[in-house]
Structures are given as C-alpha cells and as structure tokens.
C-alpha cells in the first residue's frame, strides 16, 4: 500500500506542476472585434523600451505627457529593460509583452505575424517613410523604424590633426596608412576594437553594400557561396579589421577592453578611430563634454572605400516599433508609434535620421555630406526571402551581426590562433557556402 500511495502522491504533484507551467497561455487581445489599429484611440498603453537611459532621465515621461495631452483617453505606462534583446526573447513566449515594442532581433520576418499586428501594405507607407524593409514581410508592414543611422567610422579629429592626416582616407590601404601615422605621431591607440564587450565588433557589418555601392548586397550575400572574396563587401569590411590588427594598430590586449571607458578615451584623444554606427556620435560628444574635451573633436567618416571616386554610406533603420498582436488597445498603440516617429521630436533629440522622408538630415552627418559621400539605403530582399540572410547566418554559425567569428578573426590576426587572412576567409567561405546550399535545399 505504501509504495502505491507514494506513487500516487508523486503523480499528483507532477500533474500540479504541469498545470502550473501550462497556465501562461490565453489572452484577451484577440477576442474583441473592435480592437483593431483603426479603432478608437483609447485605453491603457504599455510601452516596452530598451532606452532605459531615457526612462531614468525622465525624458520618456515628457514624451508620454505630450502624447497624453493629444490623446486624453489614453493612459501610457513605460517599462525599460536593460537586457532588452535577451529578456524580450523570453517574454515573447507569453502574451504579455506590452502594447508597443521594438521588434527584437530574435523574431524572424516570417514570424512577424505570430507576434505583431500587421499595419498595412508596405506600398502604402513607401511615399512617406524610410527604412521600411526591416519590418516588412511579403508586402505587409509590421513596424516602423524609430529612426535611422548611417554606417561608417567614428574618429577623433584632433588625433588625426596631430598625426598629420590632412585628407580622410577613401581606400582601405589609405586608412591603414593613416592609422600607422596615428601610431607613429601620437600616443593614441589608432583603432579600438572593443573585443571584450564584443558587440561593437558587429557594427562594421552595417557597411555591407556601401563598399561596392550595391543596394542588393545583403540579398545577394544570402545566396553567395564565397562572400569573403577580394572585391566583395565582406572581404573589405572584415579585411580592414584583420589588417589593422595584424599591423599592430589596435589595442595591445584586446581581452581587457572596456566599452564605457572607450567612449571617454576616444572623446579625450586616447583612441583614434572606432567602427561604429552614427548613433554613437551623440554619446561620444556627451562623453567629450563631460571630460573636458570638445564635442567638435568627434568626427564621422564613411567606410574607407570608394567606387570610381565616390564614397557611399549605408543608412538603415534602428529598432522598429510595432504593435503586439495581443495588445488590448491596438489603435492607441498604433497612434503612439505614428506620433512618436512624426511628432515627438525623438529623432532630432537623438540626432538620428528621421524615418519621415521629408525631415532634414541630422547635423552630425553634415561631415559626410561635405565630403561628397552618397547616402544609400539597401533594397528589400525579394518577397519571401526576407529572413534568408539570417537563416544562413544562424545555420553556418557565422554571426554576421555579432562578435564570435570576428573575435576569432582578431585572434588569428594578432597571432593568438592558427591561420592567416587567406585561410580564415577560406574557412568562412566554406562554412557559408555549405549553409547556403543546405538552407536553399
């Protein structure tokens, strides 16, 4: 009798455990037929944001107050998450991930409809907005970019001056030569990789397409069996990092880099250059002013490459704001997104490129314009292939947007791992082509 009872007890608790863990499903968002993005703008709104700095500084509350003034029937609440990408990935498995979110990178284009409310045909938005490709799938738009950035290289003008660099380099060779001048003539680290924090290494990937002025480069790469071949974008982008490290033009011990410190160091002239998106300009300028240097020292240039003498800088959307499929006030959520992009002044405040086509370019990109750099936006991938590049990237474990393979590249370049530039790129090509074939089949 005893063992049986014990078993029965265990079974009961197992059942309870199952019941407990299974009780997260079910939500009200889908049931109400009047709850569409075209409905009444009213109700409670929860905004989930990665901009914890704005939440803490009270700036976000100002946006909320302005919005509530315009739409008095809406009550807005904001939640800032520090590890946004990671935490949102977990939360997506519940229905409770707020009303307005920035689309986390974990959601693939073909999964948009599982989590997000469709906002309309992509074609309807094209006349008014930029940066639509990142949040569109199969002709349907699921989100709008909160703003956009240019890609290129951040540098300290004073360091360049001291080093005697009079003209900004427009080829990889000239760039390496300029870094060498920085090394020879100043005490600054010519180029800082931020190897330890890792994610800054992935920033240079944003230049894909700009090197060869090819707006279809990313959709072509998804089918290319050898993207790391001389003359192609990836070869130039990763090759620049390799050559700089191999020539000893980066920090001495990459394992102990520090992102927060690097902001101060480039602002005060201890670092010459960093490959980062233009979003970083305002942070570096703030760091300069906080540390007794001048915000004017921070310069921004296009990736050192040119096609027939013309340089191109890729501009692309930052996070895309979208409406949760499980939201109970979809109309209010959609109103917030439109208001935030068009009227809040967010893009100007952050010195980002506004998603609204008619809006002027931010001042911090004036340097690019002066040097005759053409800004270009990438074309959309062919319909149905929006997620192909990500898929190949995941399958091959070559994390284009991340740092893992680029850390290996730095290790090879500084002689800390076996191989050379050719063998490393050949290995990347082999892994990539294998996955291109596997994913295509």
């Amino acid at each position: 009798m005893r063992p049986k009872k014990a078993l029965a007890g265990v079974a009961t608790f197992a059942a309870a455990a199952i019941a407990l863990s299974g009780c997260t499903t079910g939500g009200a968002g889908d049931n109400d037929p009047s709850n569409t993005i075209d409905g009444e703008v009213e109700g409670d709104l929860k905004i989930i944001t990665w901009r914890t700095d704005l939440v803490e500084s009270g700036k976000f509350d100002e946006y909320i107050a302005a919005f509530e003034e315009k739409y008095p029937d809406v009550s807005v609440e904001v939640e800032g998450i520090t590890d946004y990408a990671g935490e949102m990935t977990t939360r997506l498995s519940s229905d409770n991930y707020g009303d307005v979110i920035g689309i986390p990178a974990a959601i693939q284009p073909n999964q948009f409809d599982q989590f997000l409310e469709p906002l309309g045909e992509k074609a309807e938005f094209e006349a008014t907005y930029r940066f639509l490709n990142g949040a569109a799938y199969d002709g349907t738009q699921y989100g709008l970019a909160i703003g956009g950035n240019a890609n290129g290289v951040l540098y300290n003008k004073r360091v360049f001056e001291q080093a005697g660099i009079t003209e900004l380099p427009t080829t990889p060779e000239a760039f390496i030569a300029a870094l060498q001048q920085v090394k020879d003539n100043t005490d600054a680290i010519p180029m800082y990789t931020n190897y330890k924090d890792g994610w800054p290494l992935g920033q240079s990937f944003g230049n894909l397409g700009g090197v060869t002025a090819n707006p279809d480069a990313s959709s072509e790469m998804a089918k290319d069996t050898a993207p790391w071949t001389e003359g192609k974008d990836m070869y130039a982008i990763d090759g620049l990092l390799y050559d700089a490290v191999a020539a000893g033009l980066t920090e001495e011990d990459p394992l102990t880099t520090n992102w927060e410190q690097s902001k101060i160091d480039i602002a005060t002239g201890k670092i010459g250059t960093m490959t980062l998106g233009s979003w970083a300009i305002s942070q570096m300028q703030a760091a300069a002013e906080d540390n007794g240097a001048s915000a004017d020292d921070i310069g921004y240039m296009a990736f050192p490459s040119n096609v027939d003498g013309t340089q191109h800088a890729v501009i692309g959307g930052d996070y895309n704001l979208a409406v949760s499929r499980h939201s109970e006030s979809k109309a209010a959520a959609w109103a917030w997104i439109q208001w935030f992009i068009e009227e809040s002044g967010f893009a100007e405040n952050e010195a980002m490129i506004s998603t609204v086509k008619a809006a002027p370019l931010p001042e911090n990109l004036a340097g690019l314009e002066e040097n005759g750099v053409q800004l270009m936006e990438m074309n959309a991938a062919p319909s149905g292939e929006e997620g192909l590049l990500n898929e190949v990237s995941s399958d091959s474990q070559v994390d284009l947007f991340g740092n893992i393979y680029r850390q290996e590249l730095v290790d090879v370049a500084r002689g800390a791992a076996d191989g050379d530039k050719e063998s490393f790129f050949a290995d990347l090509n082999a892994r990539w082509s294998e996955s291109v074939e596997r994913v295509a089949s």
Partner: protein
Amino acid sequence: MAINATGPASADTGADRLHPEGRPVRPSGAARRRTWRQTRRQLTPYLFIAAAVALLLLLTYWPAANLLYFSVTDWDGIDQDLNYVGFENYVQVFTDPRIFEVFYVSLYYFGASFLQIGLALYFATILSFNTRFRNFFRGVLFFPYLINGVAIGFVFLYLFQPDGTLDTVLSWFGLTDPPQWIGDPEIANWSLAGTSVWRYMGMNFVLFLGAIQSIPSDIYEAAELDGANKWQQFWAIILPGIRRIIGLCFVLSIAGSLSVFEIPFIMTGGANGTSTFVIQTIQTAFTHRQVGIASAMAVVLLVIVLVVTFVQRKLFPDEKVDLT
C-alpha cells in the same frame, strides 16, 4: 459486534481478534476514526516532503523533460510551431568537429583540480590540528566560495589586466615583463583555471575538514602513544580515513571541469580559445538561435557526465573504510 461495511476494519469479524499491536479491535465508530488517524499517520511523511518534491518536479524534472523534447525539434527559441526532426540535432552535435573541439579546454580545469584538491587537503590537514588562529584561517579559506561567481570574474579581470594588480605586485619582485594573463592564448586558460581553483578550493577544504574531524580522536591518541609523528598520522590515519570524500571530490571535479561556465563566460566570453562546452551551448541557443541543437548539446553533456561518473565509480569502488 457491528461490522463496518466500508472501512478496512470490515475484515475484523470477531471481538477476540487482536489488532497487530495487540489491542482488541474497537467497535465501528472508533474504528473509522482510528483508520483515519492511521491513514493520516501514514500520509504525514509524504505531506512533509510534498512541497520539496513539487518544487523539484516543477523546477528540475519538468524543465529537463522539456529539454529532451526540444532536443528533437528545430525550435529557434520563440516560434510557436515546433517541428519534430528526430535525431538530426544529435547527428549534428556528433559530426560537427567545432562542437567537440572545446572539450580539450576542460583539460586545463581538470588539471587544475588536482592542484585544488591537493591544496585543500594540505590546508584541511594543517587546520585540523591545533594551529594558532585556525578558525580565522578556516574562514579565510572558505570565504571565496561564498562570493558570487560573477563578482569573482570581474575582480580577477581587473587583477589580470595589463598593469593591473598582479603585474604591479610582480614588479615589486623584479618581474617587469609579465605576459598578458588573459590576452595570450597560451596562458589564458591557465589564468582562468587558476581563478577557478581560488574559487572552489574552499568547498573541497570544508568537505575534507569535516571528514577529518569525524575521525575519532582516540585513534590519534593511540598513534601518538605509539610515537607516530604528524606526517605518519596523515598517511596512516587521515588519508585512508577520508578516502571516500577525496573520491567524491574527484568525481565532482571531473563533472565540474566538463561543464565550466561562469568564470570564462564573465572574463572572456569564450573568446581567445577559452570557450567551453556550456558557453558554446549558450551561444548556439541564443546567438545562433538554434535551441534544438543547443538542447541536444545539453543532453549530450549530461550523458557524458553520467558516463564519466559511472566509469569512475566502477574503477574506484566505494570501499568501506576501517581504521582499526
């Protein structure tokens, strides 16, 4: 004598029949109460462990069951549809050389665990005798184990920085050209394994100390009367006396060195050739969004640890210790 038709007492038909405990069986009402009390008494222990068992099932076995399930799907971590792919993920884990390559990093930690156990044994033995300030030293040695592993990672990151604390201290002794402790791939794994020794030695130390103190003191007295010195006492009494605990520590250190995680994860993120199997599993799941394959990797690690432990128990069986 009324017969209770429903309760278990219905089997007792005669007043003269005795209960197993020797007392006569009472009439029905009392019998029912009694049965309830009996049941309750039998239930009591289960009620006591119920909460613990429920938590164990909920937080350990249920996720583990999920892990097994995910390992045969192509789940990416968020998709609402999971496709069954059979053993494809396991095939990939065993055929992709990059996945198993990292196990050689575990050898550094396994090597370091000998040092760790040796040091722990040394300190445990010394501090089990009447050493001055011994409680203070016990505290000092056990303390690192109580610190959060993430904090330790950061502290040692600063220690190992170029011109950091370690380099400064070495320069006092004339060592002016120290290597890059975690930047040099030849040294990085030793530095990390050293950090691991610093952190976990306290754990082994406490286990050994407890075992040593459980050896009856009259054995030492007898040994002293026979003129045995401390060294002889160690070889003849302490070492055989705590053999089982030492064996346990080796099992733990093998399992531990196969699944090293937090120290390299915090200090290098797995870069510079310091990646371990668990770091790779995390990257597969969350960077490459291949939760299916990552789950299969986790299951494979579990099986490897179980097999290693089993083999070790077979090779070094648990002998009864007899000190007399």
